[in-house]
Structure formats: structure tokens, C-alpha cells
């Protein structure tokens, strides 16, 4: 689960990290209200769950009330990478003497968390890694011992050699960042930029946190922060049903058991010239009701011109999938062609059930045959 700027800052604030005063607004009226409390200049920042806000014009400075209102209005009516901006953060703009980068990330290769620090802050860290890798310091952390104070100090003295007092303040922030990372079971906790202002104060000017979805059961407080303004309601609904669903832009719906096979099915659809409308993994269990629900989700997308059901039954019983499909046809108004490939556990029973149902399903034997057929049918109906 991704915490966007204002949420990540809320979390960091609880750990005593220095956050410039700021307020989340959804309307211009709210902006007018908070401007009474803020010291100018202010910065107005689109709160969206995607990167590249600055380049898209979603971050603007303002030195007067009028200017702030005008810019807020503009940003609130923007779309960034296809996502309408539903809220903005209006905050005091601190003056910037130096921008730094600081994060705790999961290092999959070494199975450890890593402190990453860079003297080049405020820019894309992946870009810095490519162009100027010496400007980045990485230090891995023993997961059982945790980050030691001396480690934080070493990193901070490297990061800000200009002033020891300020470096020690930064060391404190590194410790707090690590604590928030561990406590919230994050995969990423990032401050970019960490700003040193002209008076030597240090500020968290932008923040991002990604929390491990599998750990959310231990963190109801974070689960509660889920921003429903930016969640796809269908993806949330799917999750409640134990389905893994991601909407895409194509027109061939597909329903598959297992994440690897589901990705491969999308790839094979593309290989034969089609575009997948989604990723959908029905998982290992084979409750017919889940299959019906999955079909309902797929068909709620008006772009879908054909559906490909690709099941390799192992633990999943194909007769349960067949039962769910028959139920889906009974309860939903299905107007698009449905191609079905069921292989594995109880496939004879499943095939017989589908044949005897008299439903307009197209049954195929292999994944490639099914993908080709679905692409052909989707193109025909366009």
C-alpha cells in the first residue's frame, strides 16, 4: 500500500520528524481558509499516487494569497498521468540552501533493508544512480540488530560534511526514518528532498512510504489511511473476494488461476496481436462463487470485447470453475464471446458440464489456441 506525500508526512510527524506546516485541501474554499494560517511563500502540491508531478505542473509556488488561489484552482482541475487531482497539499515553502536524499529501501538481492543517502536530492534517485553513482551512499542494516546510532551518524557526516551540528540533526532523522520503516513494516520510506534551510533547520519537504500489503493485518491504523479517492473500486472489491485484479487498457478480459500463468496469458494475448483488458488471478481455491464474481468484474469494463478463461487445474478443480461460469451466465447479462480453456483436475467432468449447459462458450484445448480465438473474436466485434 502506497502512502502519498500527505499521508507519509502524517506518519513521519508521529516520529518527530520536522515537517513544514501544511494542510490538505479538496476545494478552493478550503485553500482560502488555510492560507490565513500559513506563512508565505507557500507551495501547492497535487496529491496523486504517481510520480512526475513537478514535470506535469502539479507543484507550484505562490507568494501572495491571490496567486495561491489561482494556482490551487488550476492544479485541482488537472489530470496527472490520467489521474484527476482530487486533493492538494498547501504548505509553507521553506527556503532551500541544500537538497538531500534519504531513504530506507528493501534490498531484495541481499535480503536486507538498506539506508540510501545522496547529496543530490530533489531529483530522481534512479537517474542519480545512473549518472553519478558516487553521490549515493548505501549501507545495509542487520535485521536483527537494527540500525545503530553510530551508523546513522556515519551516514549523516558523509551526507552533510559542511556542518557537524546539522549533520547530527540529520543523523537523528535517519534514526526516526528507520524506526518508522520498521514499525510500519514498509518496503520503502523515502524523503526526497530533505532540505537544509538558510538558518540551518532541516525539513522533510517530500515523502513517500510503501507499506508491505502482507503486513497490513498488523497495522489497522495504516490500513485506515487508505485513500479511497485514488483506489480503483473494482480492485478493492476484487481484493475482498480474494481475487487479484488490475485493470488495463485493452479489450480482452482474462481470468486465470495463478499469478505467473495470468501474466503469461496477458503476454500470449499480446503475442497474437490483442490487448489484455486486465490482470486477474482467481487464486488457488476454486469456489464457484468466486469465479462468478470474477466474471462480473471483467464484464463491468465496457471496453471488453471478448473474455478468455485460462485455468490449469491442480489444486483448483476445473469442475468448480465450470460451475462458476455456468452460474455467471445465469445471473449476468453476458453479451461478449467467452473462450474457455480448462486443463487438469476433473477436466472431463468440467467439459461435460459446459457441453451439457448449452451455453454459448467456445471451449479450446490450449492456452495459445484460446488466446488466438479471443483476439479473433474481439477484433471481429470492433
Amino acid at each position: 500500500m502506497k502512502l502519498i506525500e500527505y499521508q507519509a508526512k502524517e506518519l513521519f510527524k508521529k516520529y518527530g520528524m520536522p515537517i513544514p506546516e501544511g494542510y490538505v485541501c479538496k476545494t478552493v474554499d478550503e485553500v482560502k481558509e488555510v492560507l490565513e494560517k500559513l506563512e508565505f511563500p507557500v507551495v501547492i502540491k497535487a496529491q496523486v499516487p504517481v510520480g512526475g508531478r513537478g514535470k506535469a505542473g502539479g507543484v507550484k509556488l505562490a507568494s501572495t494569497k491571490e496567486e495561491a488561489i489561482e494556482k490551487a484552482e488550476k492544479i485541482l482541475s488537472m489530470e496527472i498521468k490520467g489521474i484527476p487531482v482530487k486533493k492538494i497539499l498547501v504548505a509553507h515553502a521553506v527556503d532551500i540552501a541544500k537538497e538531500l536524499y534519504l531513504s530506507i529501501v528493501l534490498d531484495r538481492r541481499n535480503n536486507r533493508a538498506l539506508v540510501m543517502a545522496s547529496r543530490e536530492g530533489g531529483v530522481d534517485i534512479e537517474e542519480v544512480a545512473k549518472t553519478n553513482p558516487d553521490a549515493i551512499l548505501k549501507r545495509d542494516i542487520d535485521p536483527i540488530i537494527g540500525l545503530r546510532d553510530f551508523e546513522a551518524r556515519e551516514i549523516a557526516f558523509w551526507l552533510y560534511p559542511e556542518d557537524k551540528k546539522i549533520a547530527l540533526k540529520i543523523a537523528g532523522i535517519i534514526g526516526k526514518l528507520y524506526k518508522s520503516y520498521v514499525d510500519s513494516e514498509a518496503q520503502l520510506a523515502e524523503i526526497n528532498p530533505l532540505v537544509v534551510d538558510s538558518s540551518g533547520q532541516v525539513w522533510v519537504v517530500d515523502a513517500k512510504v510503501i507499506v508491505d500489503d502482507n503486513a497490513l493485518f498488523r497495522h489497522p491504523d495504516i490500513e485506515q489511511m487508505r485513500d479511497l479517492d485514488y483506489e480503483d473500486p473494482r480492485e478493492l472489491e476484487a481484493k475482498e473476494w480474494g481475487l487479484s485484479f488490475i485493470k488495463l487498457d485493452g479489450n480482452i478480459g482474462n481470468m486465470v488461476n495463478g499469478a505467473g500463468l495470468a501474466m503469461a496469458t496477458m503476454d500470449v494475448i499480446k503475442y497474437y496481436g490483442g490487448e489484455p483488458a486486465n490482470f486477474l488471478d482467481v487464486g488457488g481455491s476454486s469456489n464457484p462463487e468466486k469465479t462468478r464474481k470474477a466474471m462480473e468484474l471483467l464484464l463491468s469494463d465496457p471496453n471488453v470485447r471478448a473474455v478468455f478463461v485460462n485455468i490449469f487445474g491442480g489444486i483448483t478443480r476445473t469442475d468448480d470453475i465450470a460451475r462458476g461460469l455456468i452460474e455467471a451466465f445465469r445471473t449476468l447479462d453476458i453479451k461478449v464471446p467467452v473462450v474457455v480453456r480448462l486443463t487438469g483436475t476433473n477436466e472431463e467432468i468440467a467439459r461435460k458440464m459446459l457441453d451439457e449447459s448449452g451455453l454459448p462458450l467456445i471451449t479450446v484445448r490450449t492456452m495459445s489456441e484460446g488466446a488466438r480465438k479471443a483476439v479473433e473474436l474481439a477484433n471481429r466485434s470492433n
Partner: protein
Amino acid sequence: MAILVGKDTKLIVQGITGRDGSFHTRLMKEYGTNVVGGVTPGKGGMEVEGVPVFDTVREAVEKTGANTSIIFVPARFAADAIMEAADAGIKLIVAITEGIPIHDMLKVKAYLDGKGARLIGPNCPGLITPGEAKVGIMPGHIFRRGRIGVVSRSGTLTYEIVSHLTANGFGQSTAIGIGGDPIIGTKFIDVLRMFREDPETEAVVLIGEIGGTDEQDAAEYIGREFNKPVVAFIAGRTAPREKRMGHAGAIIAGGEGTAEEKIKAFEKVGVRVADLPEQVPQILKEILK
């Protein structure tokens, strides 16, 4: 020969009294795996599928001489179960459980390093040496004994490709699902090292997917010192960025872990990458001629 599991495997099932644990205990026994016991804390003294249940792994090991454990324990208790197995001296631990928190796994990895135990998974289908032992949840009937080592991050996609292998006369020495999580016990490169030393394995099929750099590391290793032919398949060419594709580890993050970069890494060291699952046996036929 083959690797990791076989006739010498003496298996215990942690979480044996649960729905999945008992169901797969039966299927593994039917396949011929030597299941010697199970563990569910508080249920010691019971019997499930004809094998004794113990309260602790230590007791199970003492009474049965088990050397391998398979874990079906729910996610929130699974890290503890893995460490319990390692502490009791189990040398091969196979964690089927999906959804173990990452921070738990970081601790587990550090703990296991000091115990000399190998972990397969979590979030994996397990492993099978056809005709000898199945320590996992895969449908046994699609596998045939032979000379192809299979290693994969996925479950059903492995079954898909294995069924094409079997249908084309390519049996398997051992097939291993290493799991779809970001932190796993055994990576591609570890399995390749074992296949390298296994005289029965003549060639390897490697099934990867988006996310992380394990495939790239494997490619680099193959180029450096692997001495057997490899055919790869990479799932997720059409996956969008920054979206978790079902598996916790299947995510292109910060532009890293795309299918293209993995395919490029393999091609650079002369490993052919199949576009479709059914092309895997075709490519094997060409390179094993």
C-alpha cells in the same frame, strides 16, 4: 540422483491438521513421498492420514528422524514455524504459505544463515523429483522422470510448461518452485549451482517473471560458469509498471525488474528465451540435438 528431495527424504508437515496440510499430506503420501509425521502445537498425539502428530518440530525430529519439513502454517505464524524447523535441525524447509510479511522474512533469512538450513519459498508450490518424492502441492501426474531440471518463480505457469515438456518426451530430474515473494530462501542462482553438480540434469528450464534482479543474476552466473544448456521463459512482458502482479515480488519498481531487461540479460549470455510456453520443448529439441 536429482537434487534436494528423493528416496532419502523423510518429511514432516507443519500445519498438518489444517485443511491444506491434511489434504496435501494425503496427496504427497499417494505420490510415494515418505511422510513420517506432522506438527501442530497443542495437537500432539493425534494421527492425520496415518502419520503421528507432534506438538513441536524438535519432538517430531527426535521420534521420526525427519530431515525435511513442508510448511502450511498460516502467514502470521509461518516465520516462527520456519525458525522452529531450522532450530530443530531440519536441513530442508519448504514454505508453501503465501503472504508472509517481508519484515518477518528478513529476520528469518538472518536466522537461517546461522543454522545451515535451506529454505525453499515461501509462496511456492514446492518441489518434486518425479517418481521419488513430491514435497509440494503440484499435480504429480504431469511430471515424468527425466533429465531436465526445472526452476520457477511460479506455480501454475510451471505446470503449464512442464506439461508441454512431458508431452514432448522431456522428463524432469527435479522441478522446483522457488516462490513469488520478494524475499525467498533459495534463488535461481542457488538452484543452478545444484543442477550444475547433478549428473542426471542435462539441461535446465528457468521460468522467471518481472520484479527484482534474480534472473539477471542467474544470467550473469550462467555466462560465467554454468556448463549446461538453459532455456528461459519470462512472464510479464505486458505488465504495467509499479503494479504488483499477484505475486508480492512481481512488481516493476523504480524502472527495475522489467521483462525486457531480463530477456536481454539471458540473450546476452546465449540463453534462448521462449515467447510462448509451448516453444520451450521446441527450443530444447533444437539445442539438445
